[in-house]
């Protein structure tokens, strides 16, 4: 009887030990999958204000309104450009597919008065002259990179996993990224981007986040190109989640009629 009790205690200890270990030692892949699968709602809408600051401190500002809807297979996003004046009423729409199919993209230029399909194979292009590439603004699937948990670290009082991600494809714009993921909500708090010579190129920092309509949401983020000392700050305002954006929002009609 006594032997049996000791055996049970050992088993319980071993099992609980393994259990604790499995929580503490998530793999890099698992951490990034948790970030990727973080619930963000079926749809999101809000205003986006982008401030570009060069190394002399000169600033330019762009304002957009955006709607995003994800049905699990296709993520549809439409952006309406509100300012500056020369791009006002331009709209941009992107359909991104979970099966890996290339994105579809369209642009509506009010001067041309028609919706044009554009090539989506330019994800390394910078968005509206900012420090964000189109790829930075999208959701990169975890399977596109190899992930390695480097360490655990506390920054700004937040306990984080630090994960290094190396692209599986050759010729990707970054040789690697390092992401600080908050343990309590699996939001990325900071990310470093390294160029093709493995030199630090850009640092992304989350400045503000909150739970909106029950979903963790980034409200302010800054991308700092440390090589050129150029920064872009994006602020999201009037954010709303799961308000039932209709499919008709993501059509030619919607692009031409505006926000």
């Amino acid at each position: 009887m006594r032997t049996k009790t000791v055996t049970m205690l050992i088993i319980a200890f071993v099992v609980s030990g393994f259990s604790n270990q499995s929580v503490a030692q998530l793999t890099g892949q698992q951490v990034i999958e948790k970030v990727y699968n973080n619930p963000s709602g079926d749809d999101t809408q809000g205003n986006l204000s982008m401030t570009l600051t060069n190394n002399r401190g000169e600033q330019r500002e762009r304002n957009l309104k955006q709607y995003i809807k994800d049905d699990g297979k296709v993520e549809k996003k439409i952006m309406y450009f509100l300012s500056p004046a020369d791009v006002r009423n331009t709209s941009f729409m992107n359909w991104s597919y979970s099966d890996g199919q290339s994105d579809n993209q369209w642009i509506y230029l009010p001067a041309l008065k028609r919706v044009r399909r554009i090539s989506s194979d330019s994800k390394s292009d910078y968005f509206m002259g900012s420090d964000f590439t189109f790829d930075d603004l999208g959701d990169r699937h975890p399977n596109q990179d190899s992930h390695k948990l480097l360490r655990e670290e506390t920054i700004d009082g937040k306990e984080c996993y630090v994960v290094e991600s190396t692209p599986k494809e050759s010729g990707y714009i970054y040789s690697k990224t390092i992401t600080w993921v908050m343990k309590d909500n699996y939001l990325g708090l900071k990310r470093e981007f390294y160029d093709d010579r493995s030199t630090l190129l850009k640092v992304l920092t989350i400045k503000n986040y909150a739970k909106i309509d029950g979903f963790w949401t980034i409200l302010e983020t800054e991308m700092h190109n440390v090589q050129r000392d150029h920064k872009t700050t994006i602020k999201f305002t009037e954010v709303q989640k799961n308000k039932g954006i209709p499919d008709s929002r993501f059509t030619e009609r919607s692009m031409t009629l505006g926000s």
Partner: protein
Amino acid sequence: MKLKIAITTLLAIVFMGQAKAQEKLEITGYARNYTGVLTGGDNEFSIVQNTLNLKFEKNSNKVAFKVNPYLHHYFDSDLELGLREAFLDLRFENFDVRVGKQQIIYGKSEGVFITDVVSPKDLKEFLLPDFDEIRMGITAAKVNYYFGNSTVEAVWAPVFTPTQMPEMNSIWRPTMPFPMAPTYDYTTAKIKPSLENSELFLRFSNMGSFADFEIVGGYFWDDDPSMHITKQINPITMQLTGLTVRPEHHRLTMGGASFSMPLGPTIVKAEGGYYSGKLFQTQTPTIPDATIERDYLHYLVGLEYSLAGIMLSAQFIQENILDYEQGIRNDEIESTMTFLAKKSFLREKLWLELFAYVGLNNKDALIRPKVSYGFADGFDILLGANIFVGDKGRFGQYNANDMVYVKLKYSF
């Protein structure tokens, strides 16, 4: 005068509206100086134009309106007031109705007009202005019905608007192949506004993950008049003593389609139209008024591709006169190509662009390099050149009109 009154009235309405609902009325537009100088001869200015373009818009879920007056001031003439668009929108759940003066654009091609036959062209400065300025608004009622990602559009234009041609003494007046200076008879040049003289257009379009496509049809007046020629011949000497040219517009029927689709990193597009009822000039002496009716095809294939941040585009266009016969002044098949290369620098503050039309039949071309710099948000400086190559053909005929120009534009 009527136009001025109309604009004044509209502006008054708009400003009264502004007083009542200032927070919702949007006023945007631009001020621009456009100065061009010919590089040949005495380096004359080809254009010195100051423009104020205003857009008044008000939108709600159910109704909207837009008024777009513009004012051009030229160094060598009076002020020119115009109304590019002025329309009202009624919006319903699945359809919209737009009534008034409006620009309506069809097709997928860039810089080429194939199925894009609804809005006529302002060719006072050939094809050099921006395309929103080349396309004129027409007075029309347009209904769009939407289902899924598809749209059915019907346009009824009760009043015919012809192509705006350059003035007689303009350097952009196209070459007329007459053996002597003709006398013009404009008695049949205008189309009487009436129900039976209306124009009708129909379009079905679909936008999807695989491709976007359009099917269009139209029953309309040829925007370009046919030149009916009467010869006066001395019965004794049998010498040509006079020519009378009578411009007249004729009905055209057109059916066409266009599509664009991604093929890997490339966008492939095509557009084609079949035109019935077109009158071509002929030199066949037995045809009394020097015109002959023939159907024709107008079509295009094009590619767009991005390489190292450079947007590249090429289009191949053909106009093919069917049942061709000797004597027709146009070639049976006329081929043209367009090329575009465009790249931004300095975080989209600096843009370099090279666009070219190349006429393959006459070995002529129009080459248009441009560089624009965003001096501040909304303020752009554009330097460009228009270089005409060849000595005949659509572009070569303007060989003496090579020019450089600068545009300063402030958008607000």
